[in-house]
């Protein structure tokens, strides 16, 4: 099968983990990795896997986009530079998977709205946040049964899996996730909380989803909807587990989940990073299939 060539922008943890996922893909070919530090581990690993690399940022590969037929980009750098990078790639018609908090494109949470974005032929989609990927599908599973007055999520991640980017912009997590709980999850109001836990050995990413339904919760329908949603997420994150719940307490519906990563480049406990790269990979694969369909 023909594969769609991709460029990975950013040679840090996320970019490198993405590389391993893309190397396994049947429709995506990670052809390029872009970094800014020549000696970075990510670029080294990319070269070992026969990828083309540059340490001159995106400008180091723009001239090759057409001849190398690069159609999809993954940006795992920073929110500040994302719009500039996106503008440069947009000219060539490259589709962008944005893993930064920039969110200039619509939020993409695969089991909820990926199909819609593919149909709309969006050039740029944003992968929200790690906590958002782990919880918003569950808010939506409840909101698709009945009206959710308020959705709240608590994401707890191992300190070791929170890089300097997350730490210096922690408000971005709470603000973006809260926004997406409403826009994608379908709750009327949203709130997000993030906790870093330094315990050793590091704890597995865990997330709590609380929803307040407007009317008495339809327990059977919600249980079924939650189970179906978990199955959909497990297609790309096999280690996604509903540990407890849904619990019903008056109009409160609570779900406790744990996210074990695949342990590609990052340790298994870093389910928060894995769910981002897995969701981006899964989304890009569906977009790639659409592109291949058009070509055919």
């Amino acid at each position, binding site marked *: 099968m023909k594969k769609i060539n991709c460029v990975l922008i950013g040679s840090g943890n996320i970019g490198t983990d993405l590389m391993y996922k893309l190397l396994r893909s049947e429709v995506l070919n990670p052809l390029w990795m872009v970094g800014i530090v020549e000696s970075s581990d990510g670029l080294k690993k990319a070269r070992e896997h026969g990828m083309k690399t540059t340490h001159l940022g995106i400008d180091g590969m723009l001239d090759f986009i057409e001849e190398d037929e690069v159609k999809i980009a993954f940006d795992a750098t920073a929110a500040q530079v994302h719009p500039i990078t996106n503008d440069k790639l947009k000219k060539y018609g490259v589709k962008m998977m944005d893993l930064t908090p920039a969110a200039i494109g619509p939020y993409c949470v695969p089991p909820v709205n990926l199909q819609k974005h593919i149909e709309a032929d969006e050039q740029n989609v944003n992968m929200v946040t790690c906590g958002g990927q782990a919880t918003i599908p569950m808010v939506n599973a409840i909101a698709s049964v009945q009206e959710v007055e308020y959705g709240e999520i608590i994401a707890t991640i191992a300190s070791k899996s929170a890089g300097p980017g997350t730490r210096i912009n922690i408000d971005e997590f*709470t603000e973006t996730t809260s926004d997406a709980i409403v826009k994608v999850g379908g709750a009327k109001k949203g709130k997000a909380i993030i906790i870093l836990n330094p315990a050793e050995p590091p*704890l597995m990413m865990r997330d709590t989803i609380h929803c307040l339904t407007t009317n008495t919760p339809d327990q059977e329908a919600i249980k079924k909807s939650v189970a179906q949603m978990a199955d959909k997420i497990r297609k790309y994150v096999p280690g996604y587990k509903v540990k407890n719940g849904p619990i019903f307490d008056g109009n409160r519906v609570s779900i406790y989940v744990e996210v074990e990563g695949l342990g590609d480049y990052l340790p298994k406990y870093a389910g928060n990073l894995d769910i981002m790269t897995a969701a981006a990979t899964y989304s890009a694969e569906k977009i790639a299939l659409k592109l291949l369909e058009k070509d055919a």
Partner: protein
Amino acid sequence: MSSIRGKKVKIHDMSLRDGQHSIRHQFTLEQVETMSKALDAAGVPLIEVTHGDGLGGSSINYGFGLHTDKEWMTKAVQSVENTKVSALLLPGIGTVPDMLEAVKCGVSIVRVATHCTEADVSQEHIEKAKEIGLSCVGFLMMSHMANAEKLVEEAGKMISYGADCIYITDSSGHMLPDEVREKISAISKAYGDKVEVGFHGHNNMSMAVANSVAAIEGGANRIDAALAGFGAGSGNCPLEVLVAVLNLMGVETGIDIHAVQDAAEDIALPIMGKPTRISRDSLTLGYAGVYSSFLLFARRAAEKYGVDSRAILEELGRRGTVGGQEDMIEDLALDMAKAKGLI
């Protein structure tokens, strides 16, 4: 003669913030007004007023407040003449916009709290606080979980962002006086010439007053306390007791001892309903090193799922849970109930 005789110490009242935990964040505006006025009249220089979990804490996870932070803070600011009002902010829960709103309400001090090993999540909040001219405290929670050297390193980060005061916070009420003295001394020695140093205790092991004295001996010049100990777990350091002890030791607080005794007895106790005391559960918080505000959540989960509240708290301690992880409690209680075949 005490080595701390003649020293001046600023007392920061926690009743209207930490006290929220013991009444499920249900302070009425009238209570805020009465208490703020009494503390102001008694000469307490600083008071803190927000949801128990700080700005933006109102939630399913921590409990919805009877009022918004804005309403509580505005009322407190309007009720005081000399006392300054602070707001607590936990990055990950509260945000910079929440802080800006607090400033509009008249708050002049923000205390940015992180787990004691995660100070770097406070950078954007502390920098913003200093940029807009607030007085800013870096508040290292669960300080029993890191050694002195690590605390010095983390405090250094907060100071580099602009914090003018560093607090060693014994959120679990687990620390003993020697440990408090050692950790406060380490911070004072490293940064005492640049910033103020403070201590926030909980009375789960009946050590809050002794720990506060040890902190002053170690170089602290700011101490958190609350009327009749009004705070999470077995409460904070009881303010009126601390003032009495410090008076005997010749430490100056500027606080009227009778006025705070009266406020504790006549205002704080009736609001509490049941006096804050060391119960088997709240003692377990201290003993197992667990965040004090977990107390009521553990009791409720224990009752609902038929498991032992102490067993929940001890397991939370073993797992190294940190401040804010209230959502672990029901999850764990469910696991325990399943293991016992109850559900």
